[in-house]
């Protein structure tokens, strides 16, 4: 029987990956909680020698792990779990779980499944799929509104199409808005002024 996996749990975002600790311990894993500075992560990984590193998928410190991966190229090195599972389905599922796992080369990714299951159960609620808008319908509707506003502006300013677009875009950008928002404002103003 394979030895118990030692997990280094990086806890550096608001997601509180550390909440996993108890659940993973109860599932029989040895868990080391790391909430120090991730700038020191390469040193920590070297001293703790974990089999698995778990980190919030959205943590900026993912890039520090990337350095660990490169520095340890000549030792059994941590790699992103997707390496063995070059299957977009598995990768999508792992990303959905909200934590990224780096496992030491040679450990079969299957052994990670219970860990990912625990993470998934913990974080599923954080990862509610955004409702997919009917992008194409919405986009066609937006285009019509932008065209309408552009026409109004050309009339008002007595300018050509390119100038009208430039005016609208410049206004939108300096107000930190999207083009469609400025288009709606022009239409509303035009209706008001009749």
């Amino acid at each position, binding site marked *: 029987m394979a030895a118990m996996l030692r997990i280094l749990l990086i806890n550096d975002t608001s997601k509180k990956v550390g909440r996993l600790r108890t659940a993973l311990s109860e599932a029989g894993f040895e868990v080391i909680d790391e909430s120090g*500075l991730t*700038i020191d992560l*390469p040193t920590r990984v070297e001293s703790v020698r974990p089999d698995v590193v778990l980190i919030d*998928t*959205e*943590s*900026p*410190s*993912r*890039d*520090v*792990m*990337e*350095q660990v*991966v*490169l520095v340890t190229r000549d030792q059994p090195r*941590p*790699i*992103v779990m*997707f*390496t063995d599972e*070059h299957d*977009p389905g598995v*990768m*999508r599922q792992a*990303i959905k779980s909200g934590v*990224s796992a*780096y496992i030491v080369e040679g450990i079969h990714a299957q052994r990670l499944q219970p860990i990912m299951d625990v993470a998934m159960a913990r974080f599923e609620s954080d990862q509610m799929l955004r409702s997919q808008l009917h*992008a*194409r319908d*919405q*986009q066609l509707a*937006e*285009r019509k509104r*932008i*065209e309408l506003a*552009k*026409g109004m502006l*050309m009339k008002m300013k007595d300018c*050509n*199409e390119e100038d009208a677009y*430039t005016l609208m*875009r*410049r206004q*939108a*950008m*300096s*107000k*930190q*808005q*999207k*083009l*469609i928002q400025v288009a709606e404002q022009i239409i509303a103003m035009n209706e008001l002024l009749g």
Partner: protein
Amino acid sequence: MSDGLHMHSLAWVGGSDAPEKNALNIGYMPLTDCASMVVAATQGFGQPYGLTLNLRRQTSWAGINDKLLSGELDAAHSLYGMIYAIQLGISGAAATDMAILMGLNQNGQSINLSQPLKEAGVTSASALQQHAHQKGTKLTFAQTFPTGTHAMWLYYWLASQGIHPLQDVNSVIVPPPQMLAHLEAGRIDGFCVGEPWSAHAVEHGQGFTLTTSQAIWPDHPEKVLACTREFVEQNPNAARALVMSVLDASRFIEKSLENRRSTAQLLSCSEFLDAPLSSVEPRLLGEYCDGLGNRWHDAHSLRFHNNGATNFPYLSDGMWFLTQFRRWGLLREDPDYLAVTSQVQQTELYSAAATALNIPVPDTAIRSSRLLDGSVWNGADPAGYARSFTLHALNDH
């Protein structure tokens, strides 16, 4: 007139050139040089092609890697070298065929030193060289990704000053928005990063800008618009329409000073960079102050378009990163430089997109550049070039 454009757009959408996907998820890191993607997505530049660009802000380059490979992102603002690291399998992810669709920007990154170094009089390259070679001091420099552009600029510059970047100093990774905090806390002595984070540190009185990336290599390649090869092969029309949208936006940004200013305003808002306008705008306009009292208008500041010269995915640009990977031991053997870059750089797709927008395309995919140490890079002998440097970490030299 408006009907005319409308008809034209519909004809495009309905024809054989129609994008295979109408909505694309586009990843970016909150940096000033993501501007053309943000402008393209928010200001309707995809509309003529029936394309909606959904911007997805990311927190790490490693996250962009994963999401490009898993398909959660269709394309992303990426570090030039990083795409080659995925291609060659030297990062944490599996080797995967990648595609660079276009260059997003040139120039505009900086190397800063800390306030304590400034106060100790270490304000020039020669003073730094002396300081770095003193017994008992090992300075710590941060960059943003082990195979990224900032690592390569930092290494190149240090080496050009006689400082071995892998032996004479410590090298750590720090996410750009955290640079200032680490600098303030004295955990790092300097860093190489993209804007607005260098200007931001200077503005906060935390050190100074020692040199810029454009001083290392005027008009150097920097961020690219990248995706997997599979995405381009399955969605050639969407990929071309995406390039056209971003190209058109990059042209728009540089069309006038007013457009550049409003771009800075758009970027600074919390949804995108979440950084004060005062850190974003000056260097976006080419106005530099280094924190040592020097002010200048930089002739090679951040470029997004330059009539297409910024955007063409030169094979020689891609190869340069491979030569530096080789130089610093990230690649242990010479790859087939030209073959690898010819597959990754999507010169044909770019050329079709640029031509459709009346943007000139160069006659050759190789350009010649002179870097600050006088070395000339013209793509002719990449293996020889990689071995031509006094300081290196070649494993078999």
